[in-house]
């Protein structure tokens, strides 16, 4: 799905988290929002996901105004840094949650839910953990389950907020590649937030560099490396 952000601004009281920003995300791309702490990455992602509503500006999905669309209607698969798994449910129930939450008419049968959940657990390469509870999983496993849960609703896009931020360096590297592979297989438009420039450069098709609520530069990793638009971008990406 093609996403267009048009002069989007967000204020929290007097605090300007986002100055009006505009950005076009091509269908099927894997995009990284890169920037230091407090630069507005999470805010932008949450506005896309419908968790936050902008002070002004519009969001368009495939050309249609989606600014006022409720979170439930957006069908954005959202993944949080700290997984936000449902502790009292098994992995299976976690992944099945979005399907079971549907209205009766749209809800798949239990057999169909079982098939889909198992297919997703295969996709994240954890086929045998359906019966476990989240507290019986490692951090990396939890994050993969969170991803499977987001994919279960057949989302129109995938939004990830520092998905690997809470993991150690080795697991991080593995999951990075895993995300790239899953993205390539599903073809979903994917936006992920990171403040790790190496992570962004390694797997993203397009990198969006943000600072203090503004977009500093948008471009392919190589372009940003070669032609930083400002001192800030150069400093932030050379480390």
């Amino acid at each position, binding site marked *: 799905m093609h996403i267009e952000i*048009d*002069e989007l601004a967000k204020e929290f009281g007097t605090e300007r988290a986002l100055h*009006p920003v505009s950005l076009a995300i091509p269908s099927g791309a894997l995009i990284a929002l890169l920037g230091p702490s407090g630069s507005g990455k999470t805010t932008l992602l949450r506005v896309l996901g*419908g*968790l936050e*509503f*902008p*002070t*002004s*500006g*519009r969001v368009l999905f495939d050309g249609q*105004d989606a*600014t*006022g669309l*409720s*979170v439930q209607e957006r069908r954005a698969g959202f993944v949080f840094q700290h997984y936000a798994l449902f502790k009292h449910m098994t992995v299976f129930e976690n992944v099945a949650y979005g399907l079971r939450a549907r209205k009766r008419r749209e809800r798949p049968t239990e057999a169909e839910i079982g098939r889909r959940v198992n297919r997703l657990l295969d996709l994240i390469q954890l086929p045998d953990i359906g019966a476990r509870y989240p507290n019986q999983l490692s951090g990396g496993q939890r994050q993969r389950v969170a991803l499977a849960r987001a994919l279960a609703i057949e989302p129109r896009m995938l939004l990830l907020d520092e998905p690997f931020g809470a993991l150690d360096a080795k697991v991080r590297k593995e999951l990075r590649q895993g995300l790239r592979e899953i993205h390539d297989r599903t073809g979903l438009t994917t936006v992920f937030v990171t403040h790790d420039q190496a992570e962004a450069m390694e797997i993203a098709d397009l990198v969006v560099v943000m600072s203090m609520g503004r977009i500093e530069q948008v471009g392919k990793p190589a372009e940003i490396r070669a032609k930083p638009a400002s001192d800030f971008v150069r400093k932030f990406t050379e480390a």
Partner: protein
Amino acid sequence: MSDITLIRAESVTTEPRLVRGVVIATVLALIAVLLFAPLIAVFAEALRQGWAASLEAFASADAQSAIRLTLIVAAIAVPLNAVFGIAAAWAITKFDFRGKAFLITLIDLPFSVSPVVAGLALVLLFGVNSSLGAWLVANDLKIVFAFPGIVLATMFVTFPFVARELIPVMIEQGRAEEEVALTLGASGWRVFFTVTLPNIRWALLYGVLLCNARAMGEFGAVAVISGKIRGETTTMPIMIEMFYNEYLSVAAFSLAALLALLALVTLTLKSALEWRHADLLAATRRH
């Protein structure tokens, strides 16, 4: 600039405005009926025949001796429970010993025992038809139907209050500060008074406050063990019952109003402690 398309500012983690409004209104109405109405009723009934009649209730010898007895009982039972609470918290949080969990259960036991059963148990232990009771009577030590029994009953029902406040706070604070003080050459008592006590003083005050409120208001256990000897073993709550049963409504409610005032003072102090020293009180509180 595109025009402002402010559709909704509501957070997704809250309920719709209408639902919130209805729920808040319902809750406030229920609180008014369930909590505030009884409180107001106490004062309204006390003042039914005016201030003079209400104040007159306190002039009677019965009322005065009841007030005196209640104060004395609390003045003995509460400090004893505080000493118990401090000792228990010190032993439980500073040392590892066998059967600790079981001991904590035993300390909590009085919360789940009916006050009447507590009174009954004390009567069975110290009453004339037990061997201990017979011996006590032979030696002229009266516990049942007498002052010591009332103190014991009051201690029983308020038993866990101080310990319950102190234990979580002292667990959270750990042992390091005390150990450092020891390495600096302080004596045990000095460590307690200069390191531990300052750290737990607000939690201690909090526990004592709750303990005191309950001690002055205890009815069931005292009713059983006091024998309700007028002017001798009648505490304020017992006196309220007597006045009430004698249809001396104004007198009963006037004494009750005095206790209700005490409750209000307790609540005010408690809230003040919670707002100002939240960090130094136990994280979870239940009584």
